[in-house]
């Protein structure tokens, strides 16, 4: 599956068959700080991803101190 990430923008190919939560753990990303979008649709942590899925991991943390 193709996994797209931000900050900085980058793409990596990874094998499917793992859940969203496992994917975030494998990438050392915190679930509370990210949304996962699979083929254009939000998916929950237990969603099992397939080899042909296109995944966007979108960070949700933003902002300065003001």
């Amino acid at each position, binding site marked *: 599956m193709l996994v797209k990430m931000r900050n900085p923008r980058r793409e990596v190919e990874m094998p499917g068959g793992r859940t969203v939560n496992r994917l975030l753990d494998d990438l050392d990303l915190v679930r509370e700080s990210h*949304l996962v979008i699979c083929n254009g649709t939000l998916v929950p942590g237990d969603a099992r991803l397939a080899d042909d899925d296109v995944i966007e991991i979108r960070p949700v943390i933003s902002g300065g101190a003001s």
Partner: protein
Amino acid sequence: MAVSGSKCRSCKEPAVIDLPRHNANFCAEHLLQLCRRQVTKAIEDYSMFSPDDRILVAVSGGKDSLAVWDMLVEAGYEADGFYVGLGIGDYSDESGRFVHAFAEERGLTLLSTDLRSDFGYDIPTAARASKRVPCSVCGLSKRHLFDKAAIDGGYDVVVTGHNLDDEAAVLLGNVLHWDVDYLARQLPVLEARDGFPRKAKPLVRLTERETAAWCVIRGIDYLVEECPIAAGNRHLHHKDVLNAIEKESPSTKSAFYNNFIENMAPLLAEHGSVSSGDLQHCTRCGAPTSGEVCAFCRLVATASPHEPVPVELVLGRRGRR
């Protein structure tokens, strides 16, 4: 095709998001419903504004400000937007495009100003010229211009997109330093006083994961990339710390903030109500100030003669996440 066994807590249809702090999963429609309820509760519990009030929403092009503008308009409030062009390179150019597209697509009124065009400086230059951190001069500039736009335009309240994560991170910073003055003023709504407009934060009961999900579900295009200057700042570090705690103990973040508002803020109310002193009008712009010239006009005087500084020279530290 992803396969999930999670069901929505409300309707038992397939869920699109899991929210550990609610110990529940939600489908798209019921996630939106949760967001609407939390915003309505914040507006009502803290008497933020009424349906008759004219609202000015401070918009940046990010998820929170566009989400709160969308929610208020959907709920029937009269809400216009106000955007400040900060001059932070491509980041500001792109944020402006998202804000203008959002307003145009929905036929909403958007007011705007640009620091470089209208005041002769931008954030990178102001930071360098004043020897202050960029987030400090950015906050000072935005607060002054939001206040002025609201007063000049006859708006009843300025709404910002500060969410639960923002407020919890600021609270953590204030507690770590036991900054009682800041703690006393860290409220979801600040009443108008001394020539300043009322300010309200309707998203204080929503995490930024929830406001981001609102935008995704509602099809709102927003600037996902974070400010290149803010990267690595202390505020973002506090967010990371709180999210690490949240991962082990869901709902700790909301308890930290909501219990402060419920239990501690009333004890600090007297401290916060102390008059800000003998305010007078700034001799240059007329804004309320404790000195002869307000901080914004002093910043303009310092930064506008300075040679423009490229954003690359004031970039924040990288390496988060």
